[in-house]
């Protein structure tokens, strides 16, 4: 990790002193992350691709303002999120601005679904195409603020602090949203996880 950071700092310094072609090297490891961030917000392939390009161009233009106190990936994610929000606002008009408040105070049911006929969930069940499709659908249908936190935390694997920083919210809010997002997914996907396979200890032992 430290090595990445040192290497990136070196690249950034060289780009800023004129070796512009190095920008591709700097950005390449994060292209997918930028795209997924955009997709998680705009939920449209073309919009996400355009937005990802815009975000990368914006990162290039503002590279001098990156001070190195945050990770480059976090800084880049913030730019991607802002680009996504901009596109969303443009698409939906001013109505989008109030959506966050509304969803945050929403009295939802965030309890998990009990698995009534549970043995163990074999890994093979998780490999099923059907389940993977259901998972994609379930993630895509999460309300915006939950989908965003889940994408950054569980898909792009930022930690709680980085997720909070990227979204400009508190770590407490990240935890609450993440919990709700995960429980909503669990509830949606339980029907796909039921199995009559013989019992065996889960690969992911519960004592982890």
């Amino acid at each position, binding site marked *: 990790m430290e090595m990445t950071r040192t290497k990136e700092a070196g690249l950034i310094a060289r780009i800023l002193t004129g070796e512009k072609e190095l920008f591709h090297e700097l950005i390449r490891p994060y292209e997918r992350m930028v*795209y997924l961030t955009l997709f998680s917000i705009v939920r449209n392939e073309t919009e996400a691709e355009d937005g990802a390009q815009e975000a990368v161009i914006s990162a290039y233009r503002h590279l001098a303002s990156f001070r190195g106190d945050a990770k480059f990936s976090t800084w880049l994610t913030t730019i991607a999120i802002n680009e996504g929000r901009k596109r969303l606002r443009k698409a939906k008009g001013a109505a989008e601005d109030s959506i966050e408040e509304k969803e945050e105070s929403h009295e939802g049911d965030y309890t998990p679904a*009990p*698995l009534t006929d549970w043995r163990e*969930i074999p890994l093979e069940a998780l490999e099923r195409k059907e389940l993977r499709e259901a998972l994609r659908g379930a993630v895509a249908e999460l309300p915006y603020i939950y989908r965003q936190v889940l994408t950054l935390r569980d*898909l792009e694997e930022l930690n709680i602090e980085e997720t909070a920083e990227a979204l400009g919210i508190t770590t407490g809010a990240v935890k609450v949203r993440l919990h709700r997002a995960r429980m909503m997914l669990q509830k949606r996907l339980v029907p796909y996880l039921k199995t009559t396979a013989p019992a065996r200890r889960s690969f992911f032992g519960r004592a982890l």
Partner: protein
Amino acid sequence: MKLECKHVWEHISEYIDGSVDAKLREDIERHLEHCEICSAILDSTRNILILTADDRTFELNGCTSGWRRN
């Protein structure tokens, strides 16, 4: 302290992230030892998250192919 299922559910996400304090962790684990329902919820949630992190899941019907990929 004896935990009820409902209480365990409230902390599943943080438990998976390893961010509950030692005492609560111990209480949760003691509960899990005898509660099949909570164990199943925990395992299923954890498996879903592992699957979520799995790249293959997020090929998103090939839509990552357009942007400077392939």
